[in-house]
């Protein structure tokens, strides 16, 4: 279609779709007026049943835990897919960045930047660990904390240079943590089968509500997801970084 025809066609179609969506959404209960009985029941029961204070974590990792298993694997698939898509192809090679001038090497990062990076990455690491391990108490959890952990690794690159990052985050380690995190979730689920109940049942000691260690497998699953997400996002960043800094067309 010519771009003009496409625009006209789209305008008409979008108007029709907008009308349809409008009709559909008009049937929704008035905004803010009610919450489903299912949600009300979970809000009442989850703290007592699962010794959590954050009900969303209980829903994600206990009541509807199998959904989160697949969600974790969506992330794993995306990371694997990106590794496949951005791999050096047969007409490319990996060449570490180096300065072109022969009488000069790449200057080290300035002390101020380096110090800031150390400080920030430590802060992010601690915040990430806290978020991952306390998802059952306050909003947070494996996914959120894992991203914070990964950004701690990004800050290392920002404050130093590529070779330092390569040394700090060997690809094998990241891939292993990604794989272990994902399979760890599935293995923790097996505990339920071993205990004679359903897969992914919460069979670990639930502890006292509000404690740093409580809610049984919910916390364990959070940790495992955090490991996987951190590893996955770090691989992501390193793949994209490789494309700009390292992968070069092979000179024949």
């Amino acid at each position, binding site marked *: 279609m010519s771009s003009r025809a496409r625009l006209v066609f789209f305008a008409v179609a979008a108007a029709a779709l907008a009308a349809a969506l*409008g009709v559909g959404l008009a049937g929704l209960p008035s*905004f803010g007026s*009610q*919450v*489903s009985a299912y949600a009300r029941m979970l809000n009442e029961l989850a703290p007592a049943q699962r010794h959590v204070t954050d009900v969303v974590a209980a*829903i994600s990792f206990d009541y*509807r835990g199998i959904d989160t298993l697949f969600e974790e694997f*969506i992330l794993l698939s995306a990371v694997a897919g990106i590794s496949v*898509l951005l791999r050096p192809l047969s007409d490319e090679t990996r060449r570490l960045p180096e300065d072109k001038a022969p009488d000069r090497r790449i200057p080290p990062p300035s002390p101020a930047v380096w110090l800031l990076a150390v400080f920030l990455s430590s802060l992010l690491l601690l915040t990430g660990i806290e978020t991952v391990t306390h998802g059952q108490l306050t909003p947070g959890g494996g996914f959120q904390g894992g991203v914070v952990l990964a950004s701690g690794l990004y800050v290392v690159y920002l404050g130093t240079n590529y070779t330092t990052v390569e040394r700090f985050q060997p690809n094998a380690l990241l891939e292993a943590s990604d794989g272990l995190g994902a399979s760890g979730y599935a293995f923790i689920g097996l505990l339920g089968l071993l205990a004679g109940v359903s897969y992914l049942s919460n069979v670990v000691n639930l502890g006292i509500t509000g404690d740093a260690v409580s809610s049984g497998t919910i916390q364990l699953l959070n940790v495992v997801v955090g490991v996987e997400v951190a590893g996955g996002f770090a691989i992501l960043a390193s793949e994209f970084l490789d494309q700009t800094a390292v992968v070069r067309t092979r000179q024949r």
Partner: protein
Amino acid sequence: MSVLAYGVVVWLFLIGVYGVVTSKNLIHLVVCLSVAQSATDILLLEIGYRSGGHAPVFVDLPAHPGPAVDAVTQALALTDVVVGAAVTALLLALVVQVHKRAGTLDPNQLRATRD
């Protein structure tokens, strides 16, 4: 209030799709797709909202806390965010390779698969 609340969903979705349809840059296209994605997240969160409600976190609550909002839709929206991030990252990786191999970022210049 309902009209505005749910109208935002329709607007965001359609403006995101409009961006995808008329885009001349693949990176812009991927971001527009995220905009459309956020419309679905907003819809879920709005469905679960309760006027005067507090977050479904039962710690440090005031004396008369009132109702809590729907925690289920929040869990669903969380999942959707992760899915959106995964798809965006994949698409961006594809865009990087397209730029290298096809030499262009304009989706309308891609002629490799057509009849």
